[in-house]
């Protein structure tokens, strides 16, 4: 089952998602990228119904980029989060709702601070210091309660993230093999090796 975590630190948001694409008992792909860069300072990890996930993520990516093209500057993370939430809130009461859960992390270049949003398929939104989706969240959130520091350096944040990954690997029956980890800060979006 798809697991994703994210945490904020001093001037950055770290997002990790597993890279396994599976159907029933078969692992179809082991290097799937489930974190999309929506803008120069915005990352979104998605999980949920296969198909819905990529369709919705690409729909969001295109519309965020359209805003940037029209207005020459990007949407701020809080505005992007509101837009995504509204799309899901309209979807849930439609004929065929998108069943996608998201972690949206961004760096606000106007106020110079990182923001992380937990969004679920109903359109529930919460701004949080750290978050997780999937069965892995039951293990990761308690570790993050204990070890997360809001002003941690990137190295410290990666250490905390590694704890979460290790715990899920140890205790979840169908645990993912590898994770893709991306960070967003004032310099933009980049992938990091852990």
């Amino acid at each position: 089952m798809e697991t994703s975590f994210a945490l904020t630190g001093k001037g950055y948001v770290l997002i990790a998602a597993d890279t396994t694409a599976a159907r029933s008992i078969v692992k179809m792909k082991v290097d799937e990228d489930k974190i999309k860069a929506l803008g120069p300072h915005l990352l979104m990890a998605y999980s949920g119904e296969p198909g819905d996930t990529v369709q919705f993520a690409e729909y969001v990516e295109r519309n965020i980029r359209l805003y940037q093209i029209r207005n020459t500057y990007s949407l701020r993370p809080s505005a992007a989060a509101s837009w995504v939430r509204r799309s899901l809130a309209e979807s849930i009461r439609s004929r065929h709702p998108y069943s996608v859960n998201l972690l949206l992390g961004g760096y606000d270049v106007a106020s110079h601070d990182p923001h992380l949003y937990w969004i679920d398929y109903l359109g529930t939104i919460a701004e949080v210091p750290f978050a997780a989706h999937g069965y892995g969240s039951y293990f990761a959130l308690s570790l993050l309660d204990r070890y997360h520091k809001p002003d941690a350096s990137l190295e410290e944040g990666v250490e905390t993230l590694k704890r979460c990954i290790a715990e899920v690997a140890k205790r979840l029956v169908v645990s993912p093999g590898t994770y893709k980890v991306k960070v967003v800060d004032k310099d933009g979006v980049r992938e990091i090796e852990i």
Partner: protein
Amino acid sequence: MDQNGGSVIAMVGKDCVAIAADLRLGNQALGISGNFQRVFPVTDRIFMGLPGLATDVATLHERFRYRVNMYTIKEGREIEPETFAHLVSSTLYEHRFGPYFIEPVMAGISKTPTGKIKPFIAATDLIGCLNFAKDFVVAGTASTKLYGVAEGLWEPDLEPEDLFETISQTMLNAVDRDAFSGWGAVVHIITADKVITRTLKGRMD
């Protein structure tokens, strides 16, 4: 209604009203956030609490903000508490057969033509049935517990400081008996000239 959890209460005092809510947002039994705001200012003198499904909390907050802004622009004046309550009621009844899963609670202050302060509280069910109580209104997963404690602690004509103590103890003790409410609480005391907001220190389990 117990997908996300949360509870709200409003009480009447002497020339003041109070509205309080817990801060928990959960996904069934898993706690997600201890900072989830479900009480919003509507005008300087009216506050609204929205306990229930969290996605509808955000949607309704945005919808009411829009409708109140349109009212202010069209009428050229601020909306009165009782009028706002009816606005809430009609908005919810519009979705009679596909409702928002929210039971709003409202608290506000209005002035009579002679200048006397009139405290006002109201609540509705999820399809807009209004309840204009004289003493207190409750809603959310801990509503039954809130009824119990409020009935015991409330008395008429409490001054703002005493009303704060009363509503705070009501909220704290009621949510401690409810698994889906808690993780902190916020209280707003609304008087004719100002609003004082305080965050309560409560059990974080």
